[in-house]
């Protein structure tokens, strides 16, 4: 291998070459459940645009392949992604026969591979830049705004996933809010219960192993089983505890899903609180004691701030995990994006599956980036404060 080639670039160029020349760019289906026909880039786009896109991706592949300056690679990644995002929408409009509302145009493997290749290029550049946490959140916000603008412009409206959306616009937002409520609500409950429990476990050593073992065992129960097992006790509570049914506790639906997510969330929160408190330097504690701080002051002013980044890491794990697990709530009538995923699997309508899966992945991804940035900010702040 000659040193003039970028090693990652070889991989990216290979993916681009295969995706642009051999793989289908879009799929055309006469209706939403029949098998599709593949369309290449040149077939899917009006001819000047098709040739333009081919030129862009091939030039992008070359930029990635050779050792090129940083700024050029950054620009190539952005231009490639933007061009793909706009032109897949154009392809949707171009391939849909006039006045035909049954035909479905979906992005095909070639499109996804090209997106992957350019995202890889961009991720590589961004990783090497080692951006500050605020800059990372900024980039996320810009990307979200760009996607939002594309959605609002109606350019993607002819794509199959948005056709599924337009049939279900109301229920989509209802399920979205249920999904977020489930994930965030159970997280909040887990923090309110888990952090004090963690502090207790840190102080009372005899409790620690027992509590952590029980929480560990809960984690091993498969999620669909735990969701199912909670139906009976909650149904009983709804029947026999006055007022329980009035606040929404029921055997099926959101309540068992909420409790299950809460139980899964406890372990990372409690365990990280214990680890964080155990990692507080002895010197800091001794100094606080020497200054005459009470136990309570020591906890609030010394131990807790020092352990905070580790506790936040636990919260990040829980949030990402909950956003994913909340999809399973749909199996027991708890709502959330899982409704579309499982409906789609049932009807073998993959666009519907995507309608549920894509927002879930996007939510989890955004949550991870934001919380990672916050964790980094709190831990660097702590370091500069202590200097």
């Amino acid at each position: 291998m000659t040193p003039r080639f970028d090693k990652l670039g070889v991989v990216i160029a290979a993916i681009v070459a295969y995706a642009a020349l051999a793989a289908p760019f879009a799929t055309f289906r006469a209706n939403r459940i029949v098998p599709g026909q593949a369309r290449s880039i040149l077939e899917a786009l009006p001819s000047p645009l098709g040739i333009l896109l081919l030129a862009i991706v091939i030039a992008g592949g070359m930029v990635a392949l050779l050792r090129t300056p940083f700024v050029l690679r950054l620009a190539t990644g952005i231009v490639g992604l933007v061009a793909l995002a706009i032109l897949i929408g154009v392809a949707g409009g171009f391939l849909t026969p006039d006045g035909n509302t049954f035909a479905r145009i979906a992005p095909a493997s070639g499109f996804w591979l090209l997106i992957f290749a350019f995202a890889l290029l961009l991720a590589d550049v961004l990783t090497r830049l080692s951006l500050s946490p605020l800059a990372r959140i900024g980039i996320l916000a810009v990307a979200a705004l760009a996607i939002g603008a594309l959605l609002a412009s109606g350019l993607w409206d002819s794509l199959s996933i948005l056709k599924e959306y337009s049939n279900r616009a109301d229920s989509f937002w209802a399920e979205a809010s249920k999904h977020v409520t489930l994930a965030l609500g159970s997280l909040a409950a887990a923090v309110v219960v888990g952090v004090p429990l963690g502090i207790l476990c840190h102080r009372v050593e005899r409790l620690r192993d027992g509590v952590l073992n029980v929480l560990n065992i809960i984690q091993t129960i498969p999620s669909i089983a735990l969701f199912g097992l909670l139906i009976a006790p909650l149904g009983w509570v709804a029947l026999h505890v006055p007022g329980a049914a009035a606040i929404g506790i029921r055997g099926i639906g959101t309540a068992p899903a909420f409790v299950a997510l809460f139980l899964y969330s406890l372990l990372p929160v409690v365990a990280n609180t214990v680890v964080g408190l155990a990692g507080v330097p002895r010197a800091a504690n001794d100094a606080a004691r020497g200054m005459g701080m009470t136990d309570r002051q020591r906890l609030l002013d010394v131990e807790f701030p020092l352990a905070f980044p580790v506790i936040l890491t636990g919260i990040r794990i829980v949030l990402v995990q909950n956003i994913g697990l909340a999809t399973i709530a749909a199996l027991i009538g708890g709502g959330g994006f899982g409704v579309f995923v499982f409906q789609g699997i049932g009807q073998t309508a993959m666009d519907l599956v995507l309608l549920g899966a894509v927002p879930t992945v996007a939510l989890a991804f955004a949550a991870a980036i934001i919380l990672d940035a916050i964790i980094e900010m709190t831990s660097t702040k702590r370091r500069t404060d202590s200097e």
Partner: protein
Amino acid sequence: MKAWLPALLRLAILALLVVFITSPNWFEPLLKPLTENGAPAIYNQGSLLTLTLQHLRTVLVATVAATIVAVALAILVTRPAGAEFLPLSRSLVNIGQTFPPVAVLALAVPAVGFGEKPTLIALFLYGLLPIFENALTALTTLPGNVMEAARGAGMTGLQRLVKVELPLSAPVILGGIRLSVVIGLATATIGSTVAAKTLGEVIIAGLISNNLAFVLQGGLIVAALAVLIYDGLSAIERYAARRMGQEAE
């Protein structure tokens, strides 16, 4: 707690599990109160033993594949030739972990169809991450003096890898494998939503027909398997750590 008590407890769980999946009908009186309208108390649309074995086989195949690929990748990016990929592979692993298992499973269906294949893909992808992460941590935090000594003893790169780096990293890599097996055991149950033959079938049959006995037996078998396998792998890990003269955690 006496030292032999946990071991005895595990043996008891194992014995109970084996008896339950081989002759589930003995337990019918126990589960009967959980059913309504005379529904069957023991899963009757397939043998629990076959489902358990298929469940374990799916997890085993996916984990073995994930281990081979993840460890190979980790070795690659920690060699001088692959060092360029190290920061990128770190961020890719981070991003990969945000993909929910259900989404991976559902997205694999259009590519490979229903059945065992999408489950294997989801388990494989999901299993990769913990193993890769642990292997990477282990290989990048080896004690510098040991590596120096190996180099000073005239070992080639390959010898250092096989005789020094991999054995020293084994306990941490095993920790990653353990994590991915436990995740895999639970994720495989979701595979039944795309028609894979796993214990999830029992749970889902229970959810659909509102039969709590099915949900309970499916869930408990998977949980018992997970606890036993988790403990077993932890023991192997401690053994490996002791052989390397490291303190077990």
